[in-house]
């Protein structure tokens, strides 16, 4: 019979482990239940981008706060986390998208985020393999990439939390019940199971959003920054249609990581040849020479998507049952802030940013 914990967390992905670490750092006794590899879900599938996103003021606040937390911790990050301060370039294909770059720059300036608008020539100098004829872009300096499964493991190890390699079958305000039947009692239980969160907390508005990815052999210098087409925002916004958006980033090894695609309603993790082809063709439209690079692996993952594009962080109607899920494509970035918010809310401390926009009880309007 295990002793009781202050916090029991279902889910050992980047969000669950970040919650564990933040709660442990706050002096709380933590248990994490994870049946699979640590960081083995969406954490392993995603691109590992740490990025400021200004889709909405609340998203801006959360991503900026969390990115700053990552930057603070650079000295502690082990080598296998592969922190790469490569920056992001939002790529504008036409004048309309250039306007969007300038609009973002204004938002960044107001928030103290370092970025600069690039014209066509500067874009081409920064990324020679982008096709000719693009309008320019916005370079965001302090964005980076990491290798998420190792980051999740690092966070978990730092937390010193008790780890149970079993799934939670049931969670409630008083704790959780493992598949084996064993009951863990906890002051607060946290559902950090990502795309599977509705299975443990029925009725929450989290839907699986499948994404395809590919990675190439080593081509050092082929891409130097994380490149995202501005059309990405249209893709991330769409609630119904399947969509693709160009997304390419370098790994330290020189491999090029390619994405992105979004599908609702796909339950199987199998590669869909047509979807993969469509995504890669979109990438080739921005970087034609990609066609000649060797792709070594492809895979899929399930993002946890909410109607208003913001995660669910904080207590449910039961003040002892918390959610930390619904991070869609920003789980890596916002994991550290999520952990801090959860730890602060559990202890009744004022979080560094207002928690209201992310609380599970909020009214969600899809936009």
């Amino acid at each position, binding site marked *: 019979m295990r002793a009781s914990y202050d916090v029991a967390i279902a889910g050992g992905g980047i969000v669950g482990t970040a919650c564990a670490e933040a709660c442990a750092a706050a002096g709380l006794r933590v248990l994490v239940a994870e049946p699979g590899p640590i960081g083995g879900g969406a954490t392993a599938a995603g691109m590992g981008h740490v990025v400021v996103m200004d889709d909405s003021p609340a998203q801006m606040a959360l991503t900026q706060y969390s990115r700053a937390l990552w930057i603070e911790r650079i000295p502690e990050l082990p080598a296998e986390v592969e922190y790469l301060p490569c920056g992001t370039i939002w790529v504008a294909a036409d004048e309309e998208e250039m306007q969007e770059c300038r609009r973002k720059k204004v938002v960044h300036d107001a928030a103290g985020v370092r970025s600069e608008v690039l014209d066509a020539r500067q874009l081409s100098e920064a990324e020679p393999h982008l096709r000719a004829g693009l309008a320019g872009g916005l370079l965001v300096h302090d964005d980076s990439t990491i290798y998420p499964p190792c980051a999740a493991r690092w966070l978990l190890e730092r937390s010193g939390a008790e780890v149970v390699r079993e799934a939670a079958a049931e969670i409630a305000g008083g704790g959780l019940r493992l598949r084996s039947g064993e009951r863990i009692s906890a002051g607060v239980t946290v559902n950090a199971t990502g795309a599977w969160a509705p299975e443990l907390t029925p009725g929450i508005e989290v839907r699986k959003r499948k994404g395809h990815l590919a990675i190439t*052999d*080593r*081509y050092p210098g082929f891409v130097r920054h994380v490149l995202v087409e501005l059309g990405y925002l249209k893709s991330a916004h769409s609630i119904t249609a399947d969509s693709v958006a160009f997304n390419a980033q370098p790994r330290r*090894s020189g491999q090029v990581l390619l994405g992105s695609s979004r599908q609702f309603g796909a339950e199987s993790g199998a590669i869909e040849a047509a979807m993969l082809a469509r995504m890669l063709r979109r990438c080739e439209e921005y970087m034609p020479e990609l066609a*000649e690079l*060797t792709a070594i692996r492809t895979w899929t993952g399930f993002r946890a998507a909410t109607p208003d594009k913001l995660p669910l962080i904080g207590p449910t109607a039961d003040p002892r049952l918390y959610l930390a899920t619904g991070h869609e494509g920003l789980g890596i970035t916002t994991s550290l802030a999520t952990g801090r918010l959860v730890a602060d809310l559990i202890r009744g401390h004022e979080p560094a940013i207002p928690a209201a926009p992310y609380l599970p009880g909020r009214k969600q309007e899809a936009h």
Partner: protein
Amino acid sequence: MKVRVNGRAVEVPEGAMVSAAVALAGEAAFRRSVTGEARGPLCGMGICFECRVTVDGRAQVRSCQTPCRDGMEVRTDG
């Protein structure tokens, strides 16, 4: 036929693979591993990827499965 390996001309027999050209040029290392170790071909049949070189500007080509062509330019990462 003649093939150039790292800028040096090498005479190779008809039907030879690029791996033979690299060996004939006296290069022991075909490529560098991700942490910089010198590597050469292991399996000889195209599955280990240790024999990769740059052929006519194309990187990451498996030399053991690529027939030499007259005038080919081969670069190793030794």
